[in-house]
């Protein structure tokens, strides 16, 4: 049966990977990811995990190694952060384009320069357009749960899956969690079947050849189509998993007090916990606010987001990332979802917490109060940076 224990986010990921019985793991250490692969190499070394651990000289090679292994049908895992993800970026697109079910943990860390080892979400969001399925956890338990599910989602869709969690706040914070038994995981995640497009000696072919303009577009269309179908596939897998684990997060989005809310804040990651706490406090004062946490970024749950936004006075989007020259990354997608489903609701964008700048309940109390004030005044749109040092505030909207 399941076991209650206490682990860091990174060790929770390592246990989830071990229980998922991968054949090959390859990774290159980078703070704050290191303890994931340290733990995994320990499992391989002491015989607890029957997998090949390929040591490599860079992230580009790590992704190449798991890409090679996946292309002959192995179940594979890697993990990285920030600069490491950027270094393997080229191969990430190969993984998606070659339709290989690779699972990667991304322990989100700000991108240099200036050098930083603390969390923000710009690194994982660089995968947004690549064909990778992207999921994001809030706490240690969810890191475990999403990692196990990621293998099944990858193998059902024949697409790579990235599972994100925040540097230190989740990766190195030790929390109680429940770990599934091997029997449970085995039943949920049967032995991997080999896809027809995986290399074998008996029927040789090559993968990823030159493709002329006559053929290329259909390959992109097929990834796009599978991504759209994956909304249902992921939802079904979440449901199946929650029957085994007894934990339900609500699917693609986690709804916290949104049902009767006048104001909803959309966001992802660890800081959602602080936002939810702020929302609870404000509800005690009679302010009807809610937090809608995005658990899946690609495929984008546009319809669900639009539905949540239909009957509210204002929505907010908190981005722990920024698309330079425009708005937060989530905000651009959420605004386009509202247009797609004809939802006309005022939007307040917030950008903050970059490079690990601390986000507290107090910050979200201010955000909700700011939104309440704007909603009363009838403000249709605003975009603000949160927590900036005062002398830097001002200039362009």
């Amino acid at each position, binding site marked *: 049966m399941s076991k209650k224990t206490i682990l860091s986010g990174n060790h929770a990921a390592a246990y989830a990977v071990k229980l998922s019985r991968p054949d090959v793991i390859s990774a290159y250490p980078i703070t704050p990811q290191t303890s994931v692969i340290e733990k995994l190499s320990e499992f391989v070394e002491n015989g607890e995990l029957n997998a090949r651990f390929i040591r490599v000289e860079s992230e580009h090679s790590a992704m190449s190694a798991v890409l090679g292994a996946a292309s002959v049908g192995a179940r594979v895992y890697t993990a990285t952060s920030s600069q490491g993800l950027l270094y393997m970026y080229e191969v990430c697109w190969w993984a998606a384009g070659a*339709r290989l079910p690779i699972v990667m943990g991304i322990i989100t860390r700000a991108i240099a320069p200036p050098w930083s080892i603390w969390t923000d979400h710009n690194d994982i969001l660089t995968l947004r357009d690549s064909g990778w399925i992207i999921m994001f956890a809030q706490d240690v338990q969810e890191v475990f749960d999403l990692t196990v599910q990621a293998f099944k989602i990858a193998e*059902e869709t024949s697409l790579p899956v990235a599972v994100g969690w925040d540097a230190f706040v989740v990766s190195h914070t030790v929390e109680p969690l429940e770990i599934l038994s091997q029997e449970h995981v085995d039943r949920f995640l049967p032995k991997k079947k080999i*896809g*027809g*497009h995986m290399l074998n000696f008996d029927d*040789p072919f*090559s993968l*990823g050849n030159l493709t002329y303009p006559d053929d290329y577009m259909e390959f992109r269309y097929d990834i796009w189509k*599978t991504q759209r179908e994956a909304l249902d596939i992921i939802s079904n897998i979440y449901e199946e998993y929650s029957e085994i684990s007894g934990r339900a997060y609500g699917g693609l989005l986690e709804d916290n007090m949104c049902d009767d809310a006048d104001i909803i804040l959309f966001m992802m990651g660890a800081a959602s916990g602080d936002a939810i706490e702020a929302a609870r406090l404000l509800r005690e004062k009679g302010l009807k606010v809610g937090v809608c946490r995005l658990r899946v970024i690609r495929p984008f749950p546009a319809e669900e987001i639009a539905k949540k936004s239909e009957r509210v006075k204002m929505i907010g989007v908190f981005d722990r990332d920024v698309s330079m020259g425009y708005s937060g990354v989530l905000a651009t997608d959420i605004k386009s979802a509202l247009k797609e489903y004809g939802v006309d609701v005022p939007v307040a964008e917030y950008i903050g917490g970059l490079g690990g700048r601390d986000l507290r309940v107090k910050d979200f109390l201010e955000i909700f109060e700011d939104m309440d004030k704007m909603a009363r005044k009838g403000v249709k749109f605003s975009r603000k940076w949160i927590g900036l040092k005062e002398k830097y505030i001002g200039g362009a909207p």
Partner: protein
Amino acid sequence: MGEIMVRVYAPIARPTIGSVGKTGIWRSVKPVVNYDKCINCYLCWMYCPEGCINIIDDMVRIDYDYCKGCGICSNVCPVKAIEMVREE
């Protein structure tokens, strides 16, 4: 197995002869074997990067439909039996 895994439109290609057309037309110089000098060591056959040197009746034969004229065969020939001749 997931249904998508079966019908996935993956970028695979099976080897065929000349899938991008007759690459021999790319050639500016052409290897010509002098069979009086050739000692049948087959080094050229082994080194040809395009696989367009065949062994027919124990003799090397260059497939000019696909030979791009890179000159590797001429270079590796230990008895200088392959001359690179400019295409007319």
